[in-house]
C-alpha cells in the first residue's frame, strides 16, 4: 500500500517539474513579445490620445492650457488625458511605464531619466529660476545683508534645510551650493512638498527651498523670509521644461510641432496676463491668489525658448547631478534637447520679462 502512494507522489512530482520546465522554456521568448505599448497599426482611423503629466507647481503653462481646453480645441488629437503627479521623478517613471506622452516638469528628473535610458527629450522651456531659499524670519541674514551666497549658507551649518524629493531641481541646487560653500547642513527630502512651509513654522527645519508658489506661501504666512532669491541662487537655472517621449515624437511629429506652438502662445499669454496663470493655478490647486501672484512677480521668466543661458545652466546641472551621484553619464546637449520645434515656433529672441505685450490673436487661440 505504501509503495503505491510513494509511486503516485513521484509521478505527481515529475508532472509538476515538467510543467515548470515548459513554463520556463516558453516564457522567455514570450517575454519579448509582450509590449503593451504597441498600437495595432491596421486600424483605419488611428485614435490619437495625448497623455499629459504635470506637477503641482506654478511654473507650468499647462494650467492655462487646461483651463481653456486649448489643446482639445487646437491640437488635433482625439483625446487629451491630464494627470498631476506629486513630483518630477514620478513623471519620469510614468514616461518609463508608457503612462505619459508629454510632461511639464523639472529638468533634473528629466536628465536622470535620460541618463538611465528613458527615451525622452526636452523640446521647450516652461520656466526659469523659481527656487528661492526661505529661512525662519528671526535669526538669519539675507543675501543683501551678507553679500555672498557662501556667507548666507554658512549660517545653516549643522542645521536642517527642507527640500522636495531627491533628484528635484531644488534638491540638486541646494546640495550643490552647500557643497560649493563647504557647509555641512542636513537636507530633509520631504516628498510632500506642500508641507514645507508648515515644517518651517514648526521649527523642524531652519530653511527650505521649494518650487512656486510654496516659497512665497511661507513668506506671506509670516513663517519666513527670502534669504537668497532664486535669480541669485542659481541664475537662469532651468526650472521646468516641456518634455516629450521619442516614441510620440516619431509617430506624431506634426502634433508635436503644433503643441510647441501652442505652448509658446501660452507662455506669451502668461507673461502678458500673469493673473490668468494665478487664477488657473488657484482653480486647480487651491493656492491662494496672493501667493500665486507674488510668485509670478518674484520669478517671472516664462519664455518658452531655451536660450543659451538656459542651455548652459542645464549643462552645469549635468555635472552637479553626476557629482551628487544621481547620474552616471556625461550627458550631451543633443541627448537632452531637441530644439527644432521651438526654434520654428519662436524664431525671434528670448522674451525678457516685462517686454511681452498683449496680443488679441494669441488670446483668441488660447481662450477659444
Amino acid at each position, binding site marked *: 500500500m505504501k509503495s503505491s502512494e510513494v509511486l503516485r507522489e513521484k509521478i505527481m*512530482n515529475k508532472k509538476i*517539474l515538467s510543467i*515548470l520546465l515548459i*513554463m*520556463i522554456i516558453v*516564457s*522567455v521568448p514570450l*517575454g*519579448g513579445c509582450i509590449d503593451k505599448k504597441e498600437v495595432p497599426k491596421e486600424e483605419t482611423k488611428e485614435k490619437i490620445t495625448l497623455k499629459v503629466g504635470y506637477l503641482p507647481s506654478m511654473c507650468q503653462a499647462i494650467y492655462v492650457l487646461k483651463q481653456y481646453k486649448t489643446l482639445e480645441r487646437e491640437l488635433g488629437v482625439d483625446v487629451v488625458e491630464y494627470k498631476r503627479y506629486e*513630483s518630477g*521623478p*514620478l513623471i*519620469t*517613471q510614468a514616461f*518609463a*511605464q508608457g503612462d505619459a506622452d508629454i510632461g511639464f516638469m523639472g529638468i533634473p*528628473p528629466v536628465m*536622470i*531619466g535620460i*541618463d*538611465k*535610458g*528613458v527615451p525622452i527629450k526636452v523640446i521647450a522651456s516652461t520656466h526659469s529660476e523659481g527656487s528661492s531659499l526661505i529661512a525662519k524670519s528671526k535669526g538669519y541674514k539675507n543675501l543683501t545683508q551678507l553679500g555672498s551666497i557662501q556667507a548666507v549658507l554658512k549660517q545653516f551649518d549643522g542645521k536642517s534645510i*527642507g527640500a522636495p*524629493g*531627491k*533628484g*528635484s531641481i531644488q534638491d540638486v541646487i541646494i546640495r550643490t551650493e552647500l557643497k560649493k560653500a563647504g557647509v555641512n547642513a*542636513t537636507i*530633509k*527630502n*520631504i*516628498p*510632500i512638498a506642500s*508641507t514645507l512651509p*508648515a*515644517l518651517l513654522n*514648526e521649527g*523642524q527645519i531652519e530653511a527650505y527651498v521649494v518650487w512656486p508658489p510654496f516659497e512665497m506661501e511661507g513668506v506671506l504666512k509670516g513663517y519666513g523670509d527670502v534669504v537668497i532669491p532664486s535669480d541669485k541662487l542659481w541664475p537662469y537655472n532651468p526650472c521646468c521644461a516641456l518634455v516629450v517621449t521619442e516614441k510620440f515624437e516619431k509617430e506624431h511629429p506634426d502634433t508635436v510641432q503644433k503643441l510647441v506652438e501652442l505652448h509658446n502662445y501660452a507662455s506669451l499669454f502668461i507673461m502678458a496676463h500673469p493673473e490668468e496663470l494665478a487664477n488657473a493655478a488657484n482653480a486647480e490647486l487651491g493656492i491662494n491668489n496672493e501667493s500665486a501672484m507674488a510668485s509670478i512677480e518674484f520669478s517671472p521668466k516664462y519664455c518658452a525658448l531655451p536660450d543659451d543661458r538656459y542651455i548652459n545652466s542645464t549643462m552645469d546641472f549635468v555635472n552637479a547631478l553626476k557629482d551628487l551621484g*544621481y547620474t552616471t553619464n556625461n550627458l550631451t546637449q543633443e541627448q537632452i534637447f531637441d530644439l527644432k520645434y521651438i526654434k520654428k515656433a519662436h524664431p525671434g529672441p528670448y522674451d525678457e520679462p516685462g517686454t511681452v505685450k498683449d496680443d488679441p490673436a494669441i488670446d483668441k487661440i488660447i481662450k477659444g
Partner: protein
Amino acid sequence: MNARWTYYLVLPSFFIVIWYAVSKAQLYPAYIVPPLDMVIRSFSELVGNGTIFQHIYWSIVRVIAGFAIAAAIGIPLGISMGWSNTMMRLVEPLTNIIRQIPPIAWVPFAMIWFKAGVVESSAFIVCIGAFFPILLNTISGVKGVPVLFVESAYTLGANSRQILAKVVVPASMPNILSGLRIGLGIGWMSLVAAEMMGQDYGLGSFILNSSTVLRMDRVVVGMITIGFLGFLMDRIFKGLESSLLSWRGR
C-alpha cells in the same frame, strides 16, 4: 530530491532563472526590469560599504518602537474590551472607523505632531499599522475563552480579578500572540509609508530615494531585504509561539 527544503527552492529558482534570461536577452531597459547582475552588484556594494546595515538598523529600531507601543496599548485595551461589554460598546465604534484609515494617510499628521524624520514619527505610523491586528485578535481571544474555564475558576474560589489574570489572559494567549505576530508583520510593511518623511536611513526611505533617481536595481535590493527580514521576524515569532504555547500539544 525528496527532502522538504528542495521544494522550497523550486519556485524561487524558477524566478531567478527567468529574471536572468530576461536580463541577458535585454528585453527591457534597466529602469523597468533591473538586470539581475546589476542588482547583485548593488547588493554587494551596499553590504561592502555597510550602508545596508544602517538602513536595516534604523528600520528595525522604528518598527520595534512602534510595535512595542501598539502592543502596550492594544493588549490591555483588547482584554478590557473583550471582558467588559460596556468597554466594548464605548470603544468599538471609534476603533472601527479609525481602523479603515490606511497608515499612509497619517503621514502628514505624523510629520507635524512629531518631528518629521525621527524615530517618533515613523514609530507612530508603524504603531497605527500594528495596532489593529493586535487589538482585534486580543478581543477575539478573550471573547473566545470557554465559559467552562471561567466557571470552573469561580467554583474554585477565584474572584474576577484573579480570573482575568489567571484564566482569561493565559487562555487568550494563542490569539494574543497570533495578533502580535500579524501586527509585527503589518507594522513592518508600513515601513515605506513610515519612512517617507525625509529620513536618510531606513529601508523604506532607501527604496523611495532610489526610485526618485530611477535606480531600480537598488529598489529591488531594498524590496528583497524588507521581504527577507519580514520573513525572518515572522519565523522567529512563530518559534516563540511554539515554545510559549507548548501546552497546546500536537
